[in-house]
């Protein structure tokens, strides 16, 4: 083996903080060194991330459909409020392009009407129905221009659930698609369980026929295809086999069945903890739309989290693209007020997502918040990094907490020496009183009042 290349230490004049990728003002930009490769049918296929980024990548939402399958129904008022906030979050370019509604109950239809009455261009309102020709009456009456419909494609669903054979499913699904066109509604075929289906034996014949018939209708009426990873079996690793391989599945759709990227959407589930990366990978391999729900709430383990997709989108684009990131926190707050529990460690919105407990981390945070904060969460989310005080927080942690509490910045900030009495009180709680829980903000405020009374009074006076 050849001797390894020598690697001389490089001492810079100033720290190299890799600003091109880690511009603190934005989520870290995802840069690519080159294309992605996948071997398909013995051929090396090249996927160019720059080509993907040139496409009209969008996020679609199913909070009111799949999201509601995982919880008690939202009230009409809640749906309208959430829809309004989704519109603000997605911004004027419609990064959150569409959202879908059920149509089966009075409340479903009332919510849809009231959302539409808000007059937002985006998210566009679509619906979801079973693959039943009779359901088009509901779609037409609701004035919806596009509807999703179940076109389950694995033999688990065709034979075991629907009790049909492939030919019957094929013809029935196409019959419903034709009915949609006849009703003036754009069909979006949800290929349920596609990651457990016979791709060459059923999926390609069906989708290719769907595309062939789409050539007979106006471009804006062409059938869309939603790839539904119903059980979360999809994998994004290069080299994985069909039907689980996301790169191959999408390639088959775009190259072998002729589905244009703008008509292709990925809908995942989180049964194997792969839901977000699978969705983001689908963007890169040829899907324009990533279907999501707020905070990932959806059937069983949930769907790609919408807010995760939003941050990924910004990271890929390197630009906010009109997205109002602060709405993510507002939506989370609203969901909590509606009784939805969000785990404390949940990324971007959980109570503790940017809270550090370890003293050594708190020390870093005190020196420069960029050391232990993912990006400028104060500017983008209105949530500066925090420390939670336990016996592991150290005096550094206490100093950060006290300075944040007192609203002191720059030269005004108190050093560790000044807060030592509060730090002593904290340590005594654990060492003397054998406490096992974190110290609350209220308890710390009492200690600040006692040990730093002048600062406490100044804070109280400044409101």
């Amino acid at each position, binding site marked *: 083996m050849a001797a390894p290349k020598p690697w001389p230490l490089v001492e810079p004049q100033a720290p190299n903080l890799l600003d091109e990728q880690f511009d603190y003002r934005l989520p870290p930009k995802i840069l690519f060194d080159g294309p992605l490769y996948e071997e398909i049918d013995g051929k090396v296929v090249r996927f160019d991330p720059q080509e993907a980024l040139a496409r009209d990548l969008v996020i679609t939402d199913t909070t009111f459909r799949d999201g509601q399958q995982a919880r008690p129904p939202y009230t009409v008022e809640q749906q309208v409020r959430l829809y309004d906030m989704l519109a603000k979050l997605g911004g004027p370019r419609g990064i959150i392009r569409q959202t879908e509604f059920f149509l089966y109950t009075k409340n479903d239809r009332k919510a849809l009407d009231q959302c539409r009455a808000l007059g937002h261009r985006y998210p566009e309102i679509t619906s979801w129905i079973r693959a039943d020709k009779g359901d088009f009456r509901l779609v037409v009456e609701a004035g919806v221009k596009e509807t999703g419909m179940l076109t389950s494609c694995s033999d688990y669903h065709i034979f075991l659930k629907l009790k049909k054979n492939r030919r019957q499913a094929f013809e029935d699904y196409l019959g419903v698609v034709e009915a949609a066109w006849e009703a003036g509604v754009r069909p979006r075929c949800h290929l349920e369980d596609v990651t457990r289906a016979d791709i060459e034996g059923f999926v390609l014949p069906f989708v290719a026929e769907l595309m062939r018939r789409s050539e007979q209708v106006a471009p804006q009426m062409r059938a869309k295809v939603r790839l539904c990873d119903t059980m979360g079996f999809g994998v994004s690793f290069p080299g994985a086999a069909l039907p689980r391989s996301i790169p191959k599945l999408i390639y088959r759709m775009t190259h072998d069945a002729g589905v244009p990227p703008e008509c292709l959407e990925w809908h995942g589930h989180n049964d194997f903890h792969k839901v977000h990366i699978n969705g983001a990978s689908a963007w890169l391999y040829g899907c324009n739309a990533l279907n999501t729900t707020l905070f990932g709430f959806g059937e069983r383990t949930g769907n790609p989290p919408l807010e995760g997709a939003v941050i990924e989108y910004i990271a890929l684009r390197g630009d906010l693209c009109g997205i109002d990131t602060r709405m993510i926190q507002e939506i989370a707050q609203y969901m909590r007020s509606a009784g939805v529990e969000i785990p404390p460690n949940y990324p971007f919105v959980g109570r503790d997502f940017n809270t550090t407990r370890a003293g050594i981390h708190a020390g870093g945070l005190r020196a420069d918040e960029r050391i232990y904060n993912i990006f400028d969460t104060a500017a983008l989310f209105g949530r500066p990094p925090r420390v939670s005080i336990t016996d592991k927080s*150290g*005096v550094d942690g206490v100093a950060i907490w006290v300075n944040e509490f007192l609203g002191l910045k720059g030269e005004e900030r108190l*050093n*560790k*020496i000044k807060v*030592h*009495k509060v*730090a*002593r009180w904290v*340590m005594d709680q654990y060492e003397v009183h054998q406490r096992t829980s974190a110290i609350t903000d209220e308890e710390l405020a009492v200690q600040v009042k006692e040990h730093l009374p002048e600062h406490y009074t100044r804070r109280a006076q400044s409101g």
Partner: protein
Amino acid sequence: MDRAEIKDRVYRVISQVLKLEPGQIQEDHTFTVDLGAESVQSVELMAGFEEEFDIEMDEDEALQVQSVGSAIDFIARYLK
């Protein structure tokens, strides 16, 4: 203030904060290894010195001081 007086007063602060007899303290002792000062106690020592000598020390420099003798010399700089 001469060095001997500073030393006496430094020893007094150390014995109060670390709950030691003055006879257990030597100039070449380090605060953490020899005298057993924990993280909070290191900061309490600095606070004790500031109060005892009515000085305000640079925190980062003060926390770099490892031994009793160095602390005496460090404080002496503020009293010149």
